[in-house]
């Protein structure tokens, strides 16, 4: 097998990749394309098949999936833009997506076409746009058929984290629970499949991931008692192939004889039932609304599950398996190989859906196949990705809820004095419910061997109360009030060394850093701030090299790719919102601190910095000294 920064591939796949790419380069194409890249699939008369996602994850010129590659590194081999010249970066073109709510989507680029998706708002909720990278022309757009009521079932703004692509098809998740396939060249609908029901409190916000012709989709709804699941949909037909629930009997969680948890307290039959009071697993949450990585050699997909329903933990004594857990599953069948529950009997809404970055790391002088998981609970986990065993877990922010992770048992050591009780306010709980880091994804550089982590620095007051389950309404039972953590800054962008388990450098930000990270071979790391700055910093030192003031705050994912003109581009969508920023884009009262599940308390001044936006920004170095912003090379 061959392992690199982007994960592992068997040799056979590598040979196939090489053969296909060189064959494609020999095929004559009507329009010019850069060397070593498959021809443009939308070029009229082209005989070459459209690229596969397996080709794209190894192709530095394209960005074929939200996390860049199956290892979820968000690292680019492009270095035309580097630490020495990034100060010259300027806007090449912009595009307005129209719907001014939280813009979390990662721009994808496949052979000169940019694909983005808008939030679920405005006249065309979750509209998909295909744009010509060369000049920003709109090639086509596609609007799914919406159920507007879904907007009231979204806990944390009506966001979409992006699209997926494989073999000429774009895959879309709609907030109201559909998986859709769209022809990438024409925008025509190929199939649509209903996966979720808003009357059960289910929505979909995550970016799908395609593995071996299966579109992997997980639901949201942990604040609605919606039972969590991850489903595989056939990319060609739209048929549901398997669905793995996060709670309930083994037959529905897809746990069989091959399952081996890394610690004995997760062993036993039907633990997804037994670790709950009777029937409470049916409203148990555990939603798979975050990131999915894939190791082709081990044939395992990795993803995390969200909080158990309700937030009031006294409704659900027991470990509440399999909420707040990382699953490793066989993508062909969905059967679980192992699972590790980071947060047994969650007290604080510490979902554990954050990314699992697949890296080969030296641990005790031996190179191990690991995953790095920045925990919502404020601990940076390194797990053996073959077994789920915790190799290390170290706090990366202020944490007083958990004093340590016991590596022998695999369980967190809790600060019992903070345990919530109905009617008793617990004060100064750190980290707050969104954790030390929420969904916003980190990036891994194989050059610096550092993880670039955007995150927040918040604490909270927490008061639980009685709550009853009514389907289609929230199932929470907690009044929350968040605020800045010690020191007063509410965010940070840091570089973390997972071998020494230390912060190497950190940039304090006044507001949570809610955007994703990007890092490149040019040794530049990119992130966006909620007060409208898109920043480039030196990957080694953290020194600020360049910044751009956009129209609205950033909560999106930066990506990078090349055009036919040979220039490297960097893209991100500007538009504040999300759980942290909805106060600036929706009707939320800054004077009532407990709003937005407590986030109002920490973000009540945000509307003084920014309001909603919807702009895709594409940057590049000037083609020549006389270039000014917004002028791209004209089409021949």
């Amino acid at each position, binding site marked *: 097998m061959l392992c690199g920064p982007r994960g592992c591939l068997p040799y056979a796949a590598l040979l196939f990749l090489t053969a296909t790419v060189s064959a494609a380069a020999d095929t004559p194409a009507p329009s010019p394309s850069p060397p070593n890249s498959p021809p443009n699939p939308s070029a009229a008369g082209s005989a070459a098949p459209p690229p596969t996602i397996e080709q794209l994850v190894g192709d530095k010129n394209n960005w074929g999936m939200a996390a860049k590659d199956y290892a979820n590194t968000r690292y680019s081999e492009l270095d035309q833009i580097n630490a020495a010249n990034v100060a010259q970066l300027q806007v090449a073109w912009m595009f307005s997506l129209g719907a001014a709510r939280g813009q979390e989507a990662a721009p994808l680029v496949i052979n000169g076409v940019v694909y983005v998706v808008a939030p679920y708002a405005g006249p065309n909720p979750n509209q998909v746009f295909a744009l010509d990278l060369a000049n920003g022309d709109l090639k086509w757009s596609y609007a799914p058929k919406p159920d507007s009521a879904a907007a009231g079932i*979204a806990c944390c703004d009506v966001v979409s984290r992006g699209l997926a692509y494989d073999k000429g098809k774009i895959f879309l998740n709609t907030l109201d629970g559909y998986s859709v396939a769209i022809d990438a060249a024409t925008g025509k609908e190929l199939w649509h499949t209903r996966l979720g029901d808003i009357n059960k409190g289910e929505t979909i916000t995550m970016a799908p991931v395609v593995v071996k012709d299966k579109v992997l989709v997980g639901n949201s709804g942990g604040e609605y008692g919606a039972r969590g699941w991850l489903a595989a949909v056939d990319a060609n037909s739209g048929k549901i192939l398997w669905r793995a629930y996060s709670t309930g009997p083994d037959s529905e969680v897809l746990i069989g004889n091959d399952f081996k948890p890394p610690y004995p307290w997760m062993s036993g039959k039907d633990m997804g039932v037994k670790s709950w009071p009777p029937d409470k697993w049916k409203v148990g949450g555990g939603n798979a609304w975050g990131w999915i990585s894939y190791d082709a050699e081990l044939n395992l997909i990795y993803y995390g599950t969200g909080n158990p329903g309700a937030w009031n933990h006294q409704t659900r004594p027991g470990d509440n398996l399999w909420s707040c857990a990382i699953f490793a599953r066989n993508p062909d069948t969905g059967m679980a190989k192992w699972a590790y529950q980071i947060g047994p009997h969650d007290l604080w809404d510490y979902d554990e859906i954050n990314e699992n970055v697949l890296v080969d790391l030296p641990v005790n002088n031996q190179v191990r196949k690991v995953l790095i998981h920045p925990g919502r609970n404020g601990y940076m986990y390194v797990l053996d990705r073959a077994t789920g065993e915790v190799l290390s877990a170290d706090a990366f922010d202020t944490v007083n809820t958990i004093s340590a992770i016991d590596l022998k048992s695999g369980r967190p050591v809790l600060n019992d004095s903070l345990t919530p009780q109905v009617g008793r306010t617990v004060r100064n709980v750190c980290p707050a419910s969104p954790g030390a880091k929420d969904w916003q994804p980190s990036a891994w550089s194989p050059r610096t061997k550092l993880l670039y982590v955007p995150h927040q620095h918040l*604490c909270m007051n927490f008061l639980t109360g009685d709550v*009853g389950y009514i389907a289609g309404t929230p199932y929470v039972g907690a009044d929350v009030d968040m605020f*800045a953590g010690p020191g007063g800054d509410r965010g940070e962008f840091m570089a973390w060394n997972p071998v020494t388990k230390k912060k190497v450098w950190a940039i304090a930000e006044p507001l949570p850093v809610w955007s994703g990270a990007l890092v490149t071979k040019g040794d530049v790391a990119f992130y966006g701030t909620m007060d409208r700055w898109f920043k480039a910093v030196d990957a080694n030192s953290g020194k600020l090299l360049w910044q751009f003031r956009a129209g609205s705050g950033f909560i999106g994912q930066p990506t990078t790719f090349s055009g036919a003109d040979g220039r490297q581009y960097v893209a991100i969508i500007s538009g504040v919102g999300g759980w942290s920023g909805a106060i600036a884009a929706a009707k939320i009262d800054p*004077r009532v*601190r407990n709003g937005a599940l407590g986030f109002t308390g920490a973000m009540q*001044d945000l509307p003084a910095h920014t309001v909603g936006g919807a702009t895709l920004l594409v940057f590049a170095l000037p083609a020549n000294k006389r270039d000014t912003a917004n002028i791209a090379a004209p089409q021949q």
Partner: protein
Amino acid sequence: MVALICTAPVRVGLMLSAIVAGLATAVPLSGSAQESPALGSGDGGGNPTRSDALSPDRLIDVPVVNLTPGAVNVRPKLAIPKLDADAAQRGLQYFTNFNCVGCHMPNGGGGMGPALSHRPFIYGDRPENIYLSIHQGRPNGMPAWGTVIPEKLIWDLVAYIENINQAPVQQWGTTTSMTSPAIEQVPKEFKPSTARPWNYTQKFSNGQAPNP
């Protein structure tokens, strides 16, 4: 109309038992079955009897907007129940029991659903408008409660919402800056059970820990 009154208690009973089974706290509905015919009459307010005031036809006559073709001023007078402090206190309880607080948040601060803590409301802020928004549901995510909970209960919620949206008004428009707003409500974890949260305010905290 008379038929409606006779069947209402049965309908109410069936639906309530389904809901109460799922509730952690029982809904206090003392005498609701007998009380319905008395709504609007005998409540001490001297209002007309229910039979000519609370029919669904008349509620619909209350406009949601200040825009009537022909520039006719349409303001029908309806005999709605008295939205007093007791009603608001009951409404505070129902706001939690029916998970209104889950979307609209404590004291109506807004979150998944819009803020109810200040006017205007996009679907109208007269009591009759609020009643119908709860009863019928609304586009963009407000569920339809009308066939699921009784009218009297919805009026109590209206009374509560009328109380929580009494935000202090300093000027006609709203200024947002580093010094405005100047005040915030005392948060719910320090003032749990009030139906009049705007009576309790403190200095705006700008995202830092609140000073109770």
